């Protein structure tokens, strides 16, 4: 493997992507909303509800439906604290996965479909890079950036959650082991999923926007996880996080194998 060529393509793709507003805006705005604004809103929700005299029965109902495991994990907290911890630690956990998924898929859309749209792929195909190097480079840029952004978001989120929940909890309560597993084990897998799905989507897409819109459907499994948790069907325990990660890694490997088989210069050239 010619690592110098791989990093040159990564550098090129990221430099080009960072000048696309369609790429950069979601990468900035989404973490800002999810990991800065939302924790404060969630943390103050019980206080706001009490202050306005609003019934908090909906949250109580959600908590009442929660699996025993989760109730046990929350048993050390007062009812108000339970709401705060449930919201900040468990409710937002699946939402966190949107971050690596979105960053990797938006970068992959720019790298694969965007390159085709900008008509810059042909020159790249004439270079001495092998098909495998080219494929690796195209994935590596999106994957490493998605993980870096997710890690940074996690650090920011940890600070925000503890700060926002301080008035209610009075101590550092985040992250727990489930979140660490989520970041270390599931996030890279989810970032990989966003990439490989976008490789397939980009092969048929006309351009960046087309690929990004079609590839957006990849967030559906994450939304299902959120719905599952709110409805009390399951909750993000350490075991479930490990299992979710394992399933996604297996899907990744299968899709990656298929994508690498179809990523051939000759095929790409015929579609230019």
């Amino acid at each position, binding site marked *: 493997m010619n690592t110098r*060529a791989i990093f040159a393509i990564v550098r090129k793709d990221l430099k080009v992507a960072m000048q696309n507003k369609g790429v950069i805006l979601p990468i900035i705005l989404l973490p800002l909303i999810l990991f800065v604004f939302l924790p404060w809103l969630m943390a103050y929700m019980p206080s706001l509800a009490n202050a306005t005299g609003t019934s908090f029965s909906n949250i109580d109902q959600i908590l009442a439906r929660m699996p025993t495991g989760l109730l046990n994990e929350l048993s050390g907290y007062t009812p108000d604290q339970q709401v705060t911890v449930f919201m900040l630690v468990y409710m937002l956990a699946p939402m966190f996965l949107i971050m690596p998924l979105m960053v990797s898929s938006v970068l992959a859309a720019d790298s694969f479909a965007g390159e085709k749209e900008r008509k810059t792929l042909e*020159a*790249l195909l004439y270079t*001495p890079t092998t098909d495998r190097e080219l494929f690796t480079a195209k994935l590596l840029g999106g994957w490493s950036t998605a993980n870096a952004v997710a890690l940074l978001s996690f650090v920011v989120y940890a600070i925000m959650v503890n700060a926002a929940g301080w008035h209610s909890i009075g101590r550092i309560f985040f992250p727990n082991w489930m979140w660490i597993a989520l970041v270390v084990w599931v996030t890279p897998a989810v970032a990989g999923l966003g990439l490989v799905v976008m490789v397939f989507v980009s092969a048929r897409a006309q351009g960046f926007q087309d690929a990004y819109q079609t590839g957006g459907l990849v967030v559906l499994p994450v939304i299902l996880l959120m719905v599952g948790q709110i409805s009390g069907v399951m909750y993000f325990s350490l075991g479930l996080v490990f299992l979710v990660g394992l399933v996604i890694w297996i899907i990744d490997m299968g899709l990656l194998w298929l994508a690498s088989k179809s990523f051939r210069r000759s095929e790409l050239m015929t579609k230019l």
Partner: protein
Amino acid sequence: MSTSVIQTSTLTRRFGEMNAVDQLTLEVQAGEIFGFLGHNGAGKTTTVRLLNGVLEPTSGGSHVLGLDPQAEGPALRAKTGVLTETPSLDERLTARDNLSIYADLYNFPRADVHDRVEALLSEFELADRADEKVGGYSKGMKQRLALARALLHKPELLFLDEPTSSLDPVAARHVHILVENLARREGCTVFLCTHNLVEAQRLCDRVAVMEYGRLVALGTPSDLTRQYVKRLDVDLELDPLQMELALQILQGLPDLVVGAPKQEKDVLTLTLSGREAIPELLSVLVRKGVHIYRLAPQEANLEEVYFALHGGTE
């Protein structure tokens, strides 16, 4: 002794029912400027892709610089440079970035990258705007930058696909001089795909003419003109007082002179049925007492060859 840098043997590429390249067999010698002529859809770009191992042939094969493009594509592409028909530049990057990234892709010695990039920017008159995004460049500037990028790693074999199609005459002339210097001074072989027959005539040692994927003619420009252009234009300078007599004689030679002669002062321009007509024409005129001061055949050009091959319909 010359060596072949490109050898193809019944090279064929089909797209569905269409033969983009059909049974192409040719050789290109080291150091020559080889013109590859044909109109749109003739198979020129597909041939360049096949010869660089970025497209697989349906049948047949080729060797380029002694390598098999399919099996040894990366090694081959390290030695070739390609200027594609559209510049294929990253327009969101600067000219300097476009070159330095490709220096890494071609594994150009790290220590020499800076000097090489600066030298190319200067040679192609882009140094003043090297740090501007390429999106703001004119077509000609983009084409110059794309050419600089194709030459960055000092290729042994350079493929140029319509290199001057978007350039003004001055910039096109600059490219012609550069291509000639590359081939004549540095021994780089140039495979030039072009519509521009004047360009091919001026630059190429040999040319191949393609039509619908098939090779229809191959040779030096002068060989091809001799082979395909049968008629010959000649300038005939005569005694001005004998002009009327000469025209009368020429009217009586329909087998030798095609169409009506054109007269400009004391020079007649005739279209002869072929080179063979010259001795007989001279003999007749001299026998009838016409004083001939000069007979100058006009060299046929590739344009006439091209039209002859395409039935004069283009």
